[in-house]
Structures are given as C-alpha cells and as structure tokens.
C-alpha cells in the first residue's frame, strides 16, 4: 500500500488532492534530510568527500550539513566512538528535534571495528537507535550515498502519524543480553 503514488489529475479531481497523511509527511521529510556530521575518526574524511563536488551528496537532497544538532535531523556517526565520547553522542542526539535518524558509518561506529579494547564502545547502537549501518573501514563515499538513499526509502515507509501519537521513544536502542 505504500507504493501508492501521490498523483494529481486536475481534470478528474478539480482543485482537490486526495492522499494519505503518511504519504505527504514522509514525502516532505524524505526529500529534506539535514544531516549532522558526527565525525569522530578517519571515516569522517570519507564523509567530507561525499559532501564534495566529486561525489556530491546534494544530488539526493540532503546536502545541508548542520553542525548544530538543533538544526539537523539525521546524525551520521562517522568514526570510532569511545566510552568517553558515548555520553556526548547521546547528549547531542537528544538535542535533535524529532523526527530524527541515525546512520552508523563504518565498522567502528557499527560494532567497535578493529578496536576490541577498553576504551571503545562496541557499537553506537548501544547509546542511540541506529537506522542504517554501513560496512567498510572506511566505507567509500558511494556507500554512504547508498545508505542515505536507503534511509530515504525507510523514511518513505514510516508510519509517521501513528508514531506521532505513539509513546516515546519509538525507536529502541540495543540492549546486551547480560545487562
């Protein structure tokens, strides 16, 4: 049902457009994702490359990188998240207004990567709910673009109205079996 197109034929419908609230809301959200670069290590370099003219993230309607969480709705966690930084990542996430999404870019952000050590958080999904994971160390800019397009697909299929009225937070973070 989500594949329904938002079409308008003035001959049939006159001045009225009939659609579903979800479709309109998601369509608006999906085409104006404002990412916040949470660049913590080497992956951030690839994130910057994705923003440059060669790969050009703006082709997909999400080029307005905001360095303030209050003006962004998609946090791209690019890099190694230490336990000391985990607290900060969470606090910044909370400052973003709803609706908001998180992309875990690279092996480190997704799972701790090669840092099996005392200092590194083993996956940022333990502090913030992650929507899309990108594999690679570092992922190429194309992979980031692919992930952002996947995120747009995901946004397109969300139950926005239901989520609006649902109990918050709608998205859950990962809990270890032991804790």
């Amino acid at each position, binding site marked *: 049902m989500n594949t329904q197109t938002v079409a308008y034929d003035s001959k049939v419908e006159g001045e009225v457009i009939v659609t579903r609230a979800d479709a309109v809301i998601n369509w608006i959200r999906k085409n104006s994702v404002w990412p916040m670069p949470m660049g913590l290590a080497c992956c951030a370099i690839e994130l910057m490359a994705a923003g440059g003219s060669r790969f050009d993230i703006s082709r997909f309607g999400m080029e307005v990188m905001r360095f303030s969480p209050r003006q962004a709705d998609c946090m791209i966690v690019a890099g190694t998240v230490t*336990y*000391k930084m*985990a*607290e900060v990542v*969470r*606090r910044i996430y909370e400052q973003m207004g709803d609706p908001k999404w998180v992309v875990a870019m690279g092996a480190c952000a997704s799972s*701790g990567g*090669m*840092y*099996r*050590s*005392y*200092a*590194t*958080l*083993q996956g940022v999904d*333990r*502090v913030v709910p992650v929507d899309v994971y990108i594999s690679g160390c570092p992922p190429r800019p194309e992979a980031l673009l692919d992930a952002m397009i996947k995120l747009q697909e995901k946004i397109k299929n969300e139950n926005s109205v239901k989520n609006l009225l649902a109990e918050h937070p709608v998205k859950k*973070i990962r*809990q*270890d079996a*032991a*804790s």
Partner: protein
Amino acid sequence: MNEIEKSELLDRFAYLSERDSSDHLAVNCPADQLIEFCTVLRDEFQFDMLLDVTAIDWDVATPRFTGVYHFYSTVKQMYIRVASDCKDNIKPTLPSLVPLYSAADWHERETYDLMGIVYEGHPNLKRILMWDSYPYHPLRKDFPLAGIETPLPAEDIVGQTNLKVAAAPMMGGPFVSSGDGKMSQTEPKAKDESWNEEKGK
C-alpha cells in the same frame, strides 16, 4: 658527536650510567637527581626541547616502572634518552619536569593516566584521556586489553540507555603479528584461530 657528549656527561655526573641503545645517546639517571640533571641538560648542554615523556612497565621485575624521557637539541640537532627507575612498585613516583619544560605538562598527565606514575610537583595532575573517575591505569601489564567492567560516569545517560563500560569481546584476538619475517607470513593473526561465532556463543 654522540661520543663527546656521552663521555662529558658520564665524567661530570657520577650517578649517571650508560644505557643500552640501538640509536641515540641514552643514560640512566636516579629519580632523586633527575631535576638537577635535566636542568644542566637544558641550560648547559642545549637540549632545549622535550619531545616525549613515557614509561615502561616491567611487569614482575623490580623496579617495576621506568620513566623515559626524550630530549632534542635544536642547536646540536641530536637526541638524548634519559631513563629513571621509580623506587616504589606500588605507588610509582617521579619528579615533575613541568617547571623545566612546559611540554612536560600534558605528557606527564598522559603517562599518569595510562601508567599510573605520579609526577610530584605537577601543577595539575589529572587524567587526560580516560574520564576522571576511571579506576584503572589501562597500559599497565596487569590490565587486560579488553578492559574491565566499570560504571559509566554519566548517571542520566545510564538511566536512559543502561550502558556500562564492558569488557570488549576479543573474538579469538588480540590480533598480533608473529614477528620478523616476510610480510606475507607475518600478517596480524588471531591468537586463537579456532574461534568462531558459534563457539563464541
């Protein structure tokens, strides 16, 4: 050049001893004389730059901790390495070099943080990498690479996420190189190569 400096230093300071080194001039200096020696090094021997402050943990040996300093002379363009044993194995201390070299400030804080060496006379000796309430010194030999379970310092965030500092899964690691030889044969490998996800569960 190294030889001249070396004999000059060793003749002048009876408490110095030569230290094995495969590159630069290196000496051992007792902790009590470290300030005196480094002052002369800076003012008379023109070693005007402190490059590195670190330490070695010898594990079960005594003395367990050795502080290591690297100085550079921008005038003579040469290096010297000074090593100084800590007398106490439980609470290792060394005199702080901050009054002599301001570069020592953050270096000593790092060595304190990771190795637990207390630099006496340091103006602001607190952790620089780990958070203030962290209870361990992670580069010591008796600290496991994976870490030890510790509470996270931010209580509100723990309340929301249930997060704690946990030991990292080693998954057959640590991944280490077997040593010298052809690069193709000495790539880093897991210590336990029989590990797999099924067994790990």
